[in-house]
């Protein structure tokens, strides 16, 4: 009886956790090989509160195919709030919102060739830094 109950609870927990784990693995934040940022910096970088890594100016870029997952996972906000936050930031501080790239390939290409670039993709390619 006990083992049946244990198996049942385990199955329910797994069912609840698996989508979260899968979701968490879906978005990887990457940066130019010469730029290192931590996972804790990601929110500040994409909201314009962290503009520099050392002396390097950061250039965040959005990924149209993953933006909703990224905003949910790293910034804990919907797209409307993200857009509104950038309107206020741009209007007050003269900052430019992250450029929108169409997908992983475009983000990886931009990050590899742009010093200070930070983006997010579905799986980490070689030749870039991964935010941890």
């Amino acid at each position, binding site marked *: 009886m006990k083992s049946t109950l244990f198996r049942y609870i385990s199955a329910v927990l797994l069912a609840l956790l698996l989508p979260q784990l899968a979701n968490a693995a879906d978005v990887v934040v990457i940066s130019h090989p010469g730029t290192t940022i931590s996972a804790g910096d990601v929110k500040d970088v994409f909201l314009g*509160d962290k503009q*520099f890594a050392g002396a390097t100016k950061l250039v965040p870029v959005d990924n149209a195919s993953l933006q909703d997952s990224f905003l949910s996972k790293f910034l804990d906000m919907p797209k409307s709030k993200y857009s509104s936050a950038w*309107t*206020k930031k741009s*209007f*007050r*501080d*003269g*900052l430019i919102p992250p450029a929108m790239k169409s997908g992983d390939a475009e983000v990886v290409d931009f990050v590899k060739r742009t010093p200070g670039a930070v983006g997010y993709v579905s799986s980490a390619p070689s030749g870039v830094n991964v935010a941890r």
Partner: protein
Amino acid sequence: MLSATMASMLLAIPMLAQADIEGVPLHGFLDVGYSINSKDSTNPALPGLPNGFNVGSLDIYLTPQFEGKVKTLIELIFENTPEGSLATDLERAQIGYTFSDAATLWAGRYHAPYGYWNTAYHHGAQMQTSVLRPRFLDFEDKGGILPAHMVGLWANGKIRAGGGRFTYDAYAGNGPRIAVDSGLPAPGGVLDIQTAGDNNHQAMVGFNLGYEFGGFADGLRLALYGLRGDVADDSPAANITELNMGGAAVVYLEHDWEIMGEYYRFSDTDKSGGTGSHSSWADYLQVGMNFSGLTPFVRVEKTVLDQADMYFAMQDNGQSYFRQSLGLKYDLNQSAALKFELLNSKFADEPGRAPYDYRSFLAQFAVRF
């Protein structure tokens, strides 16, 4: 040799084309509206405020970026005067140098960074929940009692501290004067920020220190601010007043709440008439909540301005008042909003001022692009 040159030119064409396509992004705000105002109940014979449709303002801003740490912010405003003619203004012209995340130094004409509202919303009607700004924080020619703009230097930045962020603004610029139009009913004075230079070489200095909370209090911002400098007027008496303003703001914008309050205390010194110092105050509190794009709000605002203080006595906008607002903002999408607002405004019976009151209904359609 020729073919090599041609080849390099051909290679450059796509790059030029790309640069041309990217250009400098143009952003802006536009609003149109409708208003109905009741007549002054204390003197119904007076014409009162105009009714009907109106074009609010077209605000255009650019943020060209340069290599390295130099950036600029340029803002142009087109709006109608109460008489219906078109007025244009170079609202902001700032050139900045960002030393680090903790320090950016700007030079030029900027939005004076006191309180919260003045820099957060300014001409961005679509961003703010209400149709009108709190009257005492409105623009110099629309009811404001403080310089909404400054020409000078402005340093600002953010520093991580604890779970949140410490923020600061420190600024110095041309002290405003009160331009008195003798052709208007007394007092006839409006703050002039003196874009072309300071008439009395007395800089105005200010600060704004804030803390943005993180964690469980994410969205909460507390701030203290101050502004000091001499203000002269154009009247025959040529009054000079040392403006001393200090204040505090609390803002909470999270979990669909919008709570904003700002308090301003004035202890101004009469430097030409020898009447000593005079105390006044102004504040507002606005509370709103967003329900899936629908944001009802209430606001109360009040000023108690000493009319023995020539800084207020010489300004058309210097009459004490009390206003209650009840409104609704409906976000049609991320870039467009419809707003409706009811106002009850009452102006005080003070030396040199006639009391008056009126009620208003305002509607506004505001977009950003």
